[in-house]
């Protein structure tokens, strides 16, 4: 997160402004405003998962953030993805093995390059370099593929990224800004 281009900030849509306009109360914004979830995940949470051990869970949590890094999303969003992976591993031994072996491979690649485990590599760009070296593996593709649904099909994420979603039950967007663009 330290590594990203600060000039990006100038481009970032103003979330608070958006949320005000779209009528999403801060209290109603779910996990993103919950202080507890903004803290680093606790060992208690990691240990509560069934198939993956605490070390694997922490590695996957770091990895999921590195694959689709959104600074505006809380850890809670990524924790949900890891919970989904854990549930899949609990159901299917092949998935369990894919994930466990993948984490081992990831750590081996990290030690090979930086002499430490993946989560201990401090710079995001260094971790990304490790991931790039594993991009074609079934493990990486499983994580990346599952994350598309795990992140972008999550209504809590829609609120943050500015997608208002279903509209039929609200009468469509006819009276809710379908043609309200004013800057052209």
């Amino acid at each position, binding site marked *: 997160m330290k590594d*990203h281009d600060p000039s*990006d900030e100038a*481009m*970032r*849509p103003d979330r608070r402004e*958006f949320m005000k306009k779209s009528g999403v109360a801060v209290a109603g914004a779910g996990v993103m405003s919950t202080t507890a979830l903004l803290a680093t995940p606790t060992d208690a949470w990691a240990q509560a998962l069934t198939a993956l051990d605490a070390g694997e869970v922490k590695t996957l949590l770091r990895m999921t953030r*590195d*694959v*689709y*890094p*959104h600074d*505006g999303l809380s850890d809670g969003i990524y924790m949900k993805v890891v919970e989904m992976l854990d549930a899949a591993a609990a159901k299917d031994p092949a998935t369990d093995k894919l994930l466990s072996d993948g984490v081992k491979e990831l750590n081996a690649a990290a030690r090979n390059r930086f002499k430490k485990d993946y989560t201990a590599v401090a710079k995001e760009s260094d971790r*990304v370099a490790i991931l790039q070296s594993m991009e074609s593996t079934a493990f990486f593709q499983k994580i*990346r593929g599952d994350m*598309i*649904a795990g*992140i*972008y*099909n999550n209504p809590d*994420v*829609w609120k943050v*990224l*500015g*997608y*208002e*979603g*279903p*509209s*039929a*039950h609200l*009468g*469509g*967007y*006819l009276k*809710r*800004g*379908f*043609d*309200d*663009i004013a*800057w*052209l």
Partner: protein
Amino acid sequence: MAAKYNLTDDKVVVVIGSGAGGGTLASELAIKGIDTVLLEAGNRWEIPDFENDEWSNFVKISWLDPRSTSGNWRVAKDFSGLPAWIVRAVGGSTIHWAGASLRIEDHEFKAKTTYGDIAGASLLDWPITRAELDPYYDRAEKKMGTTGTNGIPRLPGNNNYKVLAAGAAKMGYKNFHTGNMSINSQPRDGRGSCQQIGFCFQGCKSGAKWSTLYEAIPKGEASGKLEVRPNSMAVRIVHDAKGKVTGVEYADKSGKIQLQKARVVCVAGNSIESPRLLLNSASNMFKDGLANSSGQVGRNYMRHMTGSVYAVFDREVHMYRGTTMAGIVTDESRHDPSRGFAGGYEMETLSLGLPFISAFLEPGMWGRDFTWAMDRYENMAGMWLVGEDMPQASNRVTLNPNLKDAYGLPVANVHFDDHPNDIAMREHAYQQGCALYESVGAVKTYKTPPYPSTHNLGTNRMSENPRDGVVNKWGQTHDVKNLFVSDGSQFTTGAAENPTLTIVALALRQADYIAKQMAAKEL
């Protein structure tokens, strides 16, 4: 009231598939008083079943039976098991379609004459002209309530359209508007007007968008001459010793094979399943598949030159609000070889929700470049580029001997290689699309590769000469008199336009022909 026919009733016309072609044809035949059985592989969902949820509705209505792919097209890499994005439900892909309703141009019906010989392309002129089809286009537009025709006002432009229109004006384009859309801009034919819901691809919750599901099919059923049988997957067409077809075997809801006898059979399962069914119906008499003496069944598979441009602006757009495709620039649809390719393309607004844009914007992309775009989703505008692709004999639907479906039948393999003309057109279209958005201040543009094919065409093509294609100008197979093809697989060439209006016009025309031939005891 809906009719009910016996399996042994050999007086019925059996139509396979209930989309734009099959649904329209079955309805028309029934209204003319002809006993008609409509077999549909999928379920019968109704409007309340549609969900404003991209993934959940995709899983509910899409054709997800196994298929395989090959060739150098990008879809084979990104979506190897899903060559096409089409529907398995009563109403077929008229549930998913966006509503764009354009007539194929006169010069496009004469593709070979207009474009000349193009290396590697199996171009032909259609055996019909625009003038011959015009009366049926008139009827189709009236039936479907197409905006911009019959005095029906065009839809209001949404934010995504306004960006497109502003860019088009800056580019010096002259022909742009909210399209000829079969979506009610005012209440019509018992259905309400568009509520700008978005989610046109997920089934229209207001019923403003035309679909055979709630327009043609109920009207056919009301005639008392149409039985719709959902969850009935046609697996083989059978014939007698003289080579006339006599019925259709289909798997019912429980997977049990039934045989519906028939006087006439019309195949409208979309351009992948229709040739697959003919090939899977091979017999001792027709060793290479039914109606395939030409060897053309499955060949010349076309899917339109497609691609999308998405642009990120520094201000909000909210492209997903409102009608998905109500916006078009037609200036590039002309044939103008000075651009470096034959044929033309349309630029049409398109938006995807966050769940789908993340999957389709640049499949496989990850990291900060990707999340930069997703963080600016609300500032995005998008367009679809859709143009004529070259027919090639080697682009082909074949049976995959190594992969079987739930009924033990070989699935379709869809092979497609881009023709150099397709590539040149796509490059041009990407450039123009990016320039259009940059002219109104786009900060970044994305050249999004093709989605799984929605416009599947040409695999049972129409030809004057029986050697060159599978069906004649009426969609009647050259080889078997009482066997018809009634979907987009009849298309001789792809043309630049979205195909649904032409499929409906051809179905209306075919219904007249079948009725006359039956009355004259020719069928």
